[in-house]
């Protein structure tokens, strides 16, 4: 797995953190989500910096607790710090993360322009995670959580979540 520039995660901690998942999207590791910005180790004490996806995301408190628990189980003490800058963007979701989203039934975010097209102008660009058709339309700009919109596929008729682009 590769992470983008500016992220520093100690090699030893990688496999531990990779097992911690987003509580609202259990198939997605927090590393693939891009919310862990750094994890450093000093004398069995770990300092982790995470950044929220959305300001009010209720998953952040749970993620912090889950990180501490996972590290504790491996014999590390830890502190988790919430940082706001630089602000999270959907560009930080890794390729593996995007694949995991789609396998789970959530359409991965499009680029900023295409995203506007589907959310504002009724363009049919989002790929249905069930049947692969692009014949899909927005039902609601806001979905089950702040980060998603509700869509429906006009070929297989299945409703699904679309992960909105955040830049």
């Amino acid at each position, binding site marked *: 797995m590769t992470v983008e520039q500016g992220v520093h995660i100690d090699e030893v901690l990688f496999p531990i953190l990779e097992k911690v998942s987003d509580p609202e999207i259990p198939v997605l590791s927090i590393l693939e989500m891009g919310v862990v910005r750094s994890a450093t180790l000093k004398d069995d004490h770990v300092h982790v910096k995470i950044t*929220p996806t*959305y*300001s*009010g*995301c*209720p998953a952040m408190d749970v993620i912090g607790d889950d990180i501490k628990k996972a590290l504790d189980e491996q014999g590390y003490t830890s502190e988790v710090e919430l*940082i*706001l*800058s*630089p*602000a*999270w*963007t959907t560009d930080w979701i890794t390729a593996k993360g995007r694949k995991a989203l789609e396998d789970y039934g959530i359409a991965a975010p499009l680029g900023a322009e295409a995203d506007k097209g589907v*959310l*504002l102008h009724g363009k049919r660009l989002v790929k249905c995670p069930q049947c692969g058709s692009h014949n899909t339309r927005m*039902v*609601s*700009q*806001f*979905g*089950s*959580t*702040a980060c998603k919109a*509700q869509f429906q596929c006009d070929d297989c008729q299945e409703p699904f979540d679309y992960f*909105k682009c*955040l*830049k």
Partner: protein
Amino acid sequence: MKNKDLYNYILGIADNTLILGQRLGELCGHGPSLETDIACTNISLDLLGQTRSYFQYAAKLKGEDATEDTIAFLRTERQYVNVLLVEQPNIDFAHTIGKQFLFDVYHYLLLEKLQHSKDVNLSAIAHKSIKEVSYHQRFSSDWVKRLGDGTDESKTRMQDAINDLWRYTDELFHTTASDEAMIAQGIGVDVKELKTSYYERVSAILDLAKLDIPESKWFQEGGKKGIHTEHMGYILSDMQYMQRTYPNMTW
């Protein structure tokens, strides 16, 4: 407190997002349709999340035993400095959307400038929040257009809401002594300079919505000085009930 002006300045921003977030939260389970219900509560969640970031910072400045919760829940009415606009009741969906729209346009302009604040914490919160607020603004503007350019009934209600709420818009551009001190240091945003673009943007959307732009030049003010409309007490009694009844309770 050493940074009294900065502390006050932060509350001047965060009390708006707190009270509007609380107002929108009232719609949880009561929205006119499932989609709008979810949208309003998602926006509420964004606003309360932003409020937490501001209050966590304010609590650090205040020191002593202050936390984000004591600032949010344990002040008296006169100590809240939100603008009157955000405390206005939901009444009907047109009023809910009208209030949201009139605030969102302002909020976006404010955050655009706050991103360049010399205070790194405020700048970081603004960078984070503006992404969310661009969605809010889109949502409320769309609904103003849909209702304004909709049926006779929806048009009448949307126009009534804009007419009722218009009197609270001028206060968005007033400044307090603490605001002025922060502007002078390059930390605060001079909201007076946002006024022209604000009314231009609002008017452009109202035009598209085929609604009349109110001509009244009479404006109401007071919130920024802690003098609120009669609605504020009811909001606070709802919001503060648990912390007042069971002090220090946590989930």
